[in-house]
């Protein structure tokens, strides 16, 4: 029985790995540097069809075509900038997960800094306010000390 379960797991693991391989075709790169750039760029380019995936993750036909194009451009000696503008001229700024810094995208780029500054300011102000609002130690006058002592003694006696 146990060996049967083991066999089932083995078959499952094998078919799963085969399915994994079927998704991504392999390219023979002339150098490992090109291969590294391929992996970097293919995770940075967005699939136009399946919009929340990059072209490395997607198996849509258009993603396959874009990977092939990326491979061809890399092998032809194009720089990263050339490749990206090649893609952008066809599919728009949309295909870049890391958009260029332009007027329209500047808000995207500076928003994290602005949010961080805002958060720091809020924390700073509220910390200062809390410090200011903290009760100061008040000395009791002699009269008050005496009243307090009397009250405590009264409580003790009544118990």
């Amino acid at each position, binding site marked *: 029985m146990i060996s049967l379960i083991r066999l089932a797991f083995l078959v499952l693991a094998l078919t799963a790995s085969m399915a994994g391989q079927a998704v991504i075709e392999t390219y023979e790169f002339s150098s490992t540097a090109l291969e590294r750039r391929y992996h970097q760029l293919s995770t940075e380019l967005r699939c*136009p*069809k399946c*919009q929340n995936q990059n072209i490395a993750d997607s198996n849509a*036909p*258009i993603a396959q*075509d*874009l990977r092939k*194009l990326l491979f061809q451009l890399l092998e032809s000696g194009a720089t990263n900038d050339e490749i990206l503008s090649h893609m*952008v*001229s*066809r*599919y*728009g*700024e*949309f295909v870049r997960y890391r958009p260029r810094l332009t007027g329209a995208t500047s808000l995207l780029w500076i928003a994290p800094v602005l949010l961080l500054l805002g958060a720091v300011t809020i924390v700073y102000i509220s910390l200062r306010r809390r410090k200011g609002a903290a009760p100061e130690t008040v000395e009791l006058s002699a009269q008050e000390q005496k009243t307090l002592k009397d009250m405590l003694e009264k409580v003790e006696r009544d118990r």
Partner: protein
Amino acid sequence: MGPRVKLFVPLIIFAVMALFLFRGLALDPRAMPSALIDHALPDFTLASLGQEQELSRQDVVGEVALFNVWATWCMSCRVEHPYLIKLAGDGVPIYGVNYKDEDGAALDWLATLGNPYRASIVDNEGTLGLDMGVYGAPETYLVDAQGIIRFRHVGVVDERVWNSTLEPLYIELGGKASTR
């Protein structure tokens, strides 16, 4: 900020978010403007489906025309096909871009369903498609007489799409036939 005003902060945040989210409901996230609007139709030299000679850009440019990206594997293409035949019958020039398809299947399709195209450019590898920024089928491009892409419609072209978006542009660009 007084404590009274502070009480309303969550409500204000909610209202602003609700406004944006409500606006988002009406937006189509897949509606992307083509990067090629107001750019020239890319150069190509490809086979013409079912014909001996090759087609290149100058063969298909010269009057306002539709370029319809289609394939036999594309179900929506079958849906829009009868309407394309009607448009072609009304005199609208339509060129096909047979996108990542097999010639045999494509010829069968045209033989059984009718052929609305002046010619179909055979784009087996999808290279012209890549240059045009095609990401699926069907897509329909409106190209003016100078060969400049003026509009792209993603999805099925039917009477509603034609009447509301494509035909007004087509006439504005000087397209010959009116279908009304």
